[in-house]
């Protein structure tokens, strides 16, 4: 059927990937090596935005609390590192660890369990109520993290070392950047595949018309919950990476402003496209960074700019790049 838009889509994806791969050498050649770390943070936020798009764009569940999962992932890394430095044992006889192969999956597990609990309750509501409940849970975790006196309270934990991953030197910004890129591309590819699988069909069906889905015979709740948990796990991984990127974990990661930023990234890039939110994260963070260089009142410029973008590209940046296409 629609081969031309398909070609355009793959061409755009290939170009974007080449661009992403070229970032560290180009920055280094320009003598702007400092920004490689920033570029890695962009990819990490892109991963978080991608996880949000899984529930919001595909499943129609507008979560205003995804920063909580980001924060949980970051805290798992932070706490693991703190105990390595301090030597104090964790509950259940666990010891601290900086091994990425232990700590990062654990970050995903903790975030996934939190998503299971939060989702199991929140998904009994829809629409505005769902937005409010996810926000409330995130705020609870935000204040809980601030109350962890052992781990720095409101100030958070400073990491003494980045996680260790078999032979890779993660303290090297370029290595870390490529690791983040590899993880982002892998997750994106898997989710793109998932979106047209049976599971993906159910999610998009729920987004379009949940009542009809039930009448067709789908127990929608369990599919929504599964998507929410998967999303929380991916966001937890992003959190683990974020703690490594900034060598820091604090309650600020879980603030509601951060959840809002993730929402803006998804909408700006193009909800439900999975690729769009990645672009949205790049666009928002690059805009913020460059405007902040220009003036300290950068938000006065960013606000109207976002309004203009939202008005001119209703299907987001990705919708604008790939052009029109047919239904799945």
């Amino acid at each position, binding site marked *: 059927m629609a081969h031309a838009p398909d070609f355009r889509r793959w061409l755009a994806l290939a170009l974007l990937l080449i661009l992403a791969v070229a970032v560290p050498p180009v920055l280094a050649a320009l003598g702007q090596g400092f920004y490689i770390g920033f570029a890695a943070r962009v990819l990490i936020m892109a991963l978080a935005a991608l996880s949000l798009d899984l529930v919001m764009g595909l499943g129609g569940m507008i979560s205003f609390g995804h920063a909580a999962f980001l924060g949980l992932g970051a805290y798992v890394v932070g706490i693991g590192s703190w105990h390595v430095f301090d030597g104090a044992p964790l509950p259940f006889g666990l010891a601290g660890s900086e091994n990425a192969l232990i700590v990062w999956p654990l970050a995903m597990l903790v975030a996934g369990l939190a998503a299971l609990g939060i989702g199991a309750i929140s998904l009994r509501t829809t629409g505005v109520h769902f937005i409010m409940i996810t926000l409330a849970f995130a705020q609870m975790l935000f204040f809980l993290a601030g109350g962890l006196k052992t781990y720095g309270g409101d100030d958070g934990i400073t990491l003494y070392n980045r996680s260790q991953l078999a032979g890779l030197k993660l303290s090297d910004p370029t290595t870390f950047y490529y690791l983040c890129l590899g993880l982002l591309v892998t997750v994106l590819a898997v989710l793109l595949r*998932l979106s047209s699988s049976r599971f993906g069909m159910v999610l998009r069906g729920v987004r379009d018309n949940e009542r009809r889905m039930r*009448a067709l015979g789908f127990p929608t709740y369990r599919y929504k919950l599964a998507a929410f948990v998967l999303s929380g796990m991916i966001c937890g991984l992003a959190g683990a990476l974020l703690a490594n990127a900034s060598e820091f974990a604090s309650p600020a990661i879980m603030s509601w402003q951060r959840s809002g930023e993730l929402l803006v990234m998804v909408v700006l890039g193009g909800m439900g496209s999975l690729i769009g939110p990645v672009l949205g994260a790049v666009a928002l963070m690059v805009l913020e960074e460059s405007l902040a260089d220009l003036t300290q009142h950068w938000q006065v410029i960013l606000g109207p700019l976002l309004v203009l973008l939202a008005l001119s590209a209703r299907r987001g940046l990705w919708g604008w790049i790939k052009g029109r296409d047919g239904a799945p």
Partner: protein
Amino acid sequence: MTEPLLHTSGLVKRYGGVIATHQVALAVERGHLHALIGPNGAGKSTLIGLLSGEMAADAGHIHFNGHDVTRLHVHRRARLGLARSFQITSIFKSFSVLANVVLAVQAHAGHSFRFWRPAVRDPALVGPALAALDRVGLADRRHHAAAALSHGERRQLELAMALAGDPAMLLLDEPMAGMGPEDGRAMVDLLQSLKGERTILLVEHDMDAVFQLADRISVLVYGAVIASGTPDHIRTDPEVRRAYLGEEA
């Protein structure tokens, strides 16, 4: 005489002080096309809601295909073979026509925790979906976006989705609503062709269609069934004439 495929006893639904369904006993025999008629506000939609499971009954029982389904959720009843179409067209607009029906087939093809293989390229789903589309005459429109269909075509798609799961019974809530005469005739022909093959409970305002198609007719007035029988019986029932048909004549 075999047991009816669907029967209710003493079914009651109240909204505050208003009784929307009053002691309804309804029996739909296997293989019949059973029509449910009644003036606006008679409680037809409420009854459909109770049967499909979207609303919970305040009293009474619903038996379907040997099961007491009174307390079962919507999706469980659908899985037992009770399929419905909606009065207000209820399709997945961002999907293609084919994907809409694939999704309907998928609902009856085990669990959907399958994350890898594209559903619209799965022969196990596409085969039955195409058969259902063919049945309603939409097969050549399968690659169109559902949103691009005309009103009549959407009604056909709605029916294809109900048929896709090979249901034991169809609850059709005004399948001809808003249709022009031509589309309406096509729908009557389609229902005629389904008659005998599927058990159908049809809610419809078009009296010509109802009397042409139905094996049995039940008349609902103020939430209660005031008469139930063959079309000839209903046509001559004095109570029905007074309460319902008289208004239209």
